[in-house]
């Protein structure tokens, strides 16, 4: 048994993607944060973009499409759905030169932590309303050019592993270099303990004060759960997500709604 076990697991190796990310850790973690103020011209352009986004807000939508049993079998997941959005692509000219340079210098992706969301937004050079909390900016590249920019933040001051609630906010922008369908992603749920285990799910549509509509998928079992909320605003796809253990589901939904209202 030991022999065949060893020979089997000798063939399980860290994939090349993971190796690349690990090799980038020293450079990524040492790189100083470059801060840049947005110029007046950019601000004016940004304001127009923001106004356009608001005016058209109602036309953007999110669709949740459940997997068929056949599709589920292909993935090996226990439960799955696909999120489809009509988020627009962002032209490369909308980003700062620093952001474009950072992406160009990265092999696959570039990541930097910032003290605030606003600083990360400044660095990116384009308007992405977010939350008041430290943020991480991740730029993904394709053929040396920016394909996807994502701002991530955890707005709750509860981040230790023992905490019962975690909330994250991600705002993603896609450029013309992004090869897949922008804003479309699949959610896979693994590890449901047994066939009789029941995970409840409720999909909710949440109307924001200015007419925008977010879709929230709430999943839960006896003592834990998650909420995934999606909102498209022009060229930005927001994903607000919460996971909780021994926490009130209604309270978590309210927290997520509060964040959506303030984006």
């Amino acid at each position, binding site marked *: *048994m030991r022999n065949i076990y060893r020979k089997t697991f000798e063939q399980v190796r*860290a994939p090349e*993607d993971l190796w690349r990310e*690990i*090799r980038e850790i*020293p450079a990524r973690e040492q790189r100083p944060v470059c801060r840049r103020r947005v110029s007046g011209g950019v601000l004016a352009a940004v304001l127009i973009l923001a106004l356009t986004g608001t005016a058209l807000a109602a036309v953007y939508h999110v669709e949740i499409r459940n997997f068929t049993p056949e599709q589920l079998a292909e993935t090996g997941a226990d439960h799955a759905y696909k*999120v489809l959005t009509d988020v627009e692509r962002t032209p490369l000219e909308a980003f700062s030169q620093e952001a474009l340079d950072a992406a160009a210098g990265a092999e696959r992706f570039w990541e930097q932590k910032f003290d605030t969301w606003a600083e990360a937004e400044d660095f990116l050079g384009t308007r992405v309303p977010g939350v008041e909390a430290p943020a991480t900016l991740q730029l993904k590249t394709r053929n040396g050019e920016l394909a996807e920019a994502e701002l991530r933040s955890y707005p709750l001051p509860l981040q230790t*592993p023992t905490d019962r609630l975690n909330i994250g906010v991600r705002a993603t922008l896609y450029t013309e270099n992004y090869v897949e369908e922008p804003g479309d992603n699949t959610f896979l749920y693994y*590890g449901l303990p047994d066939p009789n285990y029941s995970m409840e799910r409720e999909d909710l549509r949440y109307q924001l004060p200015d007419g925008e509509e977010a879709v929230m998928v709430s999943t839960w079992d006896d003592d*834990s759960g998650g909420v995934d909320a999606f909102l498209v605003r022009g060229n930005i796809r927001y994903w607000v997500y919460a996971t909780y253990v021994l926490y009130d589901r209604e309270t978590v939904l309210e927290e997520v709604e509060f964040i959506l209202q303030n984006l």
Partner: protein
Amino acid sequence: MTERDFTAAAERYLDMVYRLALNCLRVPADAEDAAQTVMLRLWQRAEPFSNDDHLRHWLVRVTLNVCKDAARSPWRRRMVPLEHCREPVFDTPEHQALYAGVMALPAKYRLPLYLYYYEGCTVAEVGELLGLKPSTVQTRLARAREKLKAQLKEE
């Protein structure tokens, strides 16, 4: 930790961290995330390691803790492009079947098996790493072998 030390540690132990995480979490993408978190913690660690054994032991412990955090909820969810739902590929059908059999076992059996058979830990060491009595480790190893044999016979 210097960049050189970090790179050397990654080359020596990244596969181990990844395999251990895969045995804990079962899903390759989750294992990749966990391995990345572990290596980031290694890079951020200020205190030096007294020797290679110390480093290896620390990596195993941190990997188990990171995986425990990731698996707190009875289910886990991931947002991925579909083509990223990949499984390891093996040379022979026997190895593929053994891997599938191991992954079908509950985590409480997979981990002792991996630490004992692959990492060469003694029963006492496996118990210390997993917070189990040696007698419990022995029982789990025996049950894991039985279950695995039964599964492989079924196929």
